[in-house]
């Protein structure tokens, strides 16, 4: 036995030596980086569906400047990890699509981005709302050129509305009357469900923003004068509960894709969601005749359209091509780019001076310009863990199951976010009013 033990130890020592010899040295990992050579810029994005559109848009830039653009899209859900890993390794693209608000902050903290305010004059013309999503929380500097604003509203099927003799509702009473009528006619009034909890804060924002009082509540909560337990917020959660009779059967288990199918296959008359759905709806069912309206107000005051900045394009601080990269993002702040973006990708560009040809986009933008309010939980309550959107999503799902009431949903939200949220901290950076 003893001899075997001796042999074991010898073997172990030898293996360790081999292992040490095989281990890669630190220097080896440092290779050339993704992009090299002058006159070319790499761009990363999470919009795999927009690759063709972006390539077409960037052709114009190449024609004008001679700088080649290599556009690469990664799967949406993997994008943040891929980008962060690359940046941490000193690599990554020259220009990257950046998430807005809380998620942006992580990259700002890592010093991976070049501040653009001061460098790109045209940013000053952008609305503060658009810039808020591209601004660092601690230093107040702008790190990206915003590419899209998303608005949240009700989509409706024009054919189903006219078949049932329903006008676009102006008041909350009109809205419920329309829903009752549709239900009576055997049509699902609203395609919405809680199977995917991320859709629920959107539902709450559309239905509840006006109920909690829009910007005045937002200002109150940012200043610390209000919290989520306040009666108006509880009532806004209750507004979601009030819609339950008009949702599909067992709404808590109806998935996001189910609701998209119900609306595009004309089984449901309305869909509550973001402006990004418009492109998907028309490409899935080109015959679908649909329009949009802002959720009719309960209070009798004006209807509000919740919005948020989808993200921005920023420059990698470690890029060897910062000059070209900066030239590209500067162009992305131009009217020329904004117009190409709107025409090719059918989304709402925040670039000042663009015109919207698409009737659906026009409708959404008009309603947004009339009266809007930030998508509160996304814009302000994703800077810490647990996020406001995650909390309310999970709890509204429980409310749909009958396990929680509006009061408890609001209390859980307050309990969760108060662990990291400090009133007064966010409002300096992200002013709601321009």
């Amino acid at each position, binding site marked *: 036995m003893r001899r075997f033990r001796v042999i074991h130890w010898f073997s172990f020592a030898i293996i360790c030596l081999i292992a040490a010899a095989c281990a890669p040295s630190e220097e080896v990992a440092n290779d050339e980086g993704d992009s090299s050579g002058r006159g070319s810029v790499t761009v990363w994005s999470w919009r795999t569906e927009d690759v063709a559109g972006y390539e077409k848009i960037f052709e114009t830039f190449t024609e004008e400047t001679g700088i080649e653009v290599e556009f690469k899209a990664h799967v949406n859900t993997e994008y943040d990890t891929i980008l962060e890993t690359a940046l*941490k390794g000193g690599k990554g693209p020259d220009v990257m699509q950046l998430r807005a608000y*809380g998620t942006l902050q992580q990259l700002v903290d890592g010093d991976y981005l070049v501040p653009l305010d001061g460098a790109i004059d045209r940013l000053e013309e952008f609305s503060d709302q658009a810039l808020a999503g591209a601004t660092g929380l601690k230093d107040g500097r702008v790190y990206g050129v915003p590419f899209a604003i998303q608005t949240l509203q009700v989509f409706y099927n024009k054919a189903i509305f006219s078949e049932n003799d329903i006008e676009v509702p102006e008041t909350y009473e009109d809205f419920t009357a329309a829903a009752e009528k549709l239900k009576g006619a055997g049509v699902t009034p609203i395609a919405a469900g809680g199977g995917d909890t991320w859709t629920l804060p959107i539902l709450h924002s559309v239905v509840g923003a006006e109920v909690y009082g829009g910007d005045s509540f937002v200002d109150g909560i940012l200043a610390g004068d209000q919290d989520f337990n306040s009666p108006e917020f509880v009532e806004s959660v209750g507004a979601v509960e009030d819609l339950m009779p008009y949702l599909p059967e067992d709404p808590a288990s109806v998935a996001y894709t189910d609701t998209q199918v119900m609306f595009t296959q004309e089984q449901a008359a309305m869909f509550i969601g973001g402006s990004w759905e418009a492109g998907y709806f028309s490409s899935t069912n080109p015959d679908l005749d649909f329009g949009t309206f802002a959720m009719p107000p309960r209070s009798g005051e004006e209807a509000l359209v919740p919005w948020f900045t989808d993200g921005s394009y920023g420059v990698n601080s470690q890029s060897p091509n910062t000059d070209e990269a900066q030239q590209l993002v500067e162009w992305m702040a131009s009217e020329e780019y904004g117009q190409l973006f709107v025409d090719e990708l059918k989304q709402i560009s925040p670039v000042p001076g663009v015109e919207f040809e698409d009737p659906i986009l026009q409708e959404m933008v008009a309603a947004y310009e009339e009266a809007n309010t930030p998508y509160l939980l996304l814009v302000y309550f994703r800077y810490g863990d647990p996020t406001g959107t995650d909390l309310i999503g999970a709890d509204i799902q429980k409310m749909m199951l009958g396990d929680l009431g509006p009061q408890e949903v609001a209390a859980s939200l307050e309990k969760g976010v108060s662990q990291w949220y400090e009133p007064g901290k966010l409002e300096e950076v992200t002013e709601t009013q321009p």
Partner: protein
Amino acid sequence: MRTRDRASSASSDLRGGAQHGESGPSRPPPGGLTLKQRTTIRRAITYALFIAPAFLLFTMFIVYPMLSAMKFSFFNWNGLLQGDFVGIANFQTLFTRYPYNEQVWTALGHNAYFFVLTMVVQNGIGLALAVALDRGIRGRAFFRNAVFLPHLLPTVVVGFLWYLMLNPQFGVINQGLEATGLGWVARPWLGDPSTAFTTIAFVNAWSWIGFPMVIFLANLASIPDEYDEAAKVDGANSWQRFRYISLPLLVPSLTIVTVLTFIGNFNAFDLVYSMAGSEASPGGSTDVLGLLFYRIAFDSADPNAVGVGNALAVLMFFLVFGVSNVWLRMFKRKEIAY
């Protein structure tokens, strides 16, 4: 036994030789080593070369990631940047930060329920099937393969198939129930918090049942027929022969199946994720530790997700490792040699 004797006598030779070499200056070995020492070293090199490939792979892909997970759990993280050493702060976060502090216990409870249900349903039926097949049913090979077949499907496929079949609107399960006059039983199986997790556990049992059955069958086949025949001669009935002959001799396979079930159920993720999503729909009623880990590590906005996520991973590892070890020891004592 004989080998061991030889080995121990050889090792005492070696010890004697080594002592002799140290104390006796009379025989200075060439290069400072005795012949025996050189043989030992040469053998060690040979062994090392044989072991090295497996050892390196094991170290690089199993030991190293596990140790680094443990290390990571003691640091604060900013995205993927490692920050300061924070001691057990990440573990504290798990048990103090709302809603994790509540979810971690719900999830653990679900894992335990999952294990109990799987033991009873999957392994119980698996055992019954194995005994039935072992006692010579006609078409034995066919039944064995038929029961084992679902196990060949990838878990996500199983999850997706059952997700479709259980769909309350167009799923075949509820349609079948209604067609046979059992409409009152039909319900949104995965949408109702009171049935969702049990449904997933049954789907899991459906897909895994062939596995314990095959192990039990192999064990049953290794039990000599004489015992059974002797019991039959003594007048034991079918149940008695199972209870007092087969079952005690099945302890080795019962051990393996129990421990593997435990490991599988406490690390459960893929099937639950494919049927209930990372949010453990509906309303967290299907939450397990694996899903909670996924939400913390991949879905949360916490820059320290790596730290807290690894803290949970480490706890899960010690739970599974610790309990499996204790069980293996306990069962070992119940094994009967024959």
